[in-house]
């Protein structure tokens, strides 16, 4: 799925990065636990989370995740936006809950990591 489709389906706002980034996202993982995200063997997945802090971006950077969706209108801080830009991470904010965002994307073909 294209990033622009993820944005449309979750009614998200783009906070950092470029919607036109040529990425085809196949899988997603939803978690607030960064230690868990750091155990994933897959790269280039979509991360859906309610955790809005700098460590979210550091975790994405280390785990080679390039698209992050902040659920339930959690707001990215200027430091988070800065880190997202530095690491070419597309950061989106959706009003949807983690459950709803995950459900909508799942029913449109995004696969779970597990």
């Amino acid at each position: 799925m294209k990033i622009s489709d993820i944005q449309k389906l979750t009614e998200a706002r783009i906070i950092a990065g470029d919607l036109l980034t040529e990425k085809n996202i196949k899988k997603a993982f939803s978690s607030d636990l960064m230690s868990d995200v750091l155990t994933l063997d897959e790269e280039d997945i979509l991360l859906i989370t309610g955790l809005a802090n700098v460590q979210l971006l550091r975790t994405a950077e280390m785990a080679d995740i390039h698209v992050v969706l902040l659920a339930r209108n959690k707001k990215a801080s200027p430091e988070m936006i800065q880190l997202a830009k530095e690491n070419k991470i597309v950061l989106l904010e959706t009003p949807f809950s983690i459950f709803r965002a995950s459900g909508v994307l799942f029913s449109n073909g995004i696969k779970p990591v597990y």
Partner: protein
Amino acid sequence: MELVFEIEGGDFTSAGNASSKIKKVLKQLNIDSKTIKRIVIAVYEAEVNIVAHAKKGILKASIGSHFIEVKLTDKGPGIEDVEKAMEAGFSTASKQVREMGFGAGMGLPNIKKNVDELDIISEMGKGTLVKFKNYF
């Protein structure tokens, strides 16, 4: 090549700075991205452990042509039972650490999974040395 970083206990905004620099250096050396990921995840969880559990620490990374050795030395409470601390789910993390997205007792097991050699030496009331090596 030697890289040295200071890590402040409690400073969650800076946790990951060392891992980030190390990642950039490894990328420039054209090391395979799966290998880089394993290394930087271990460095990052170890860095977070100093921020979460210790007062302050120093991280030294030595990068050779076919390996990286990372040593993290901290001043802090130490680990009472290293074997137990290595078990998945064992954690003494504070609520604040859990709010940061850590503190589920998954850090040390994940470090172990991602490195080729690991040594942890700890003295109660003094501090901890975490040393690991990866080959590429």
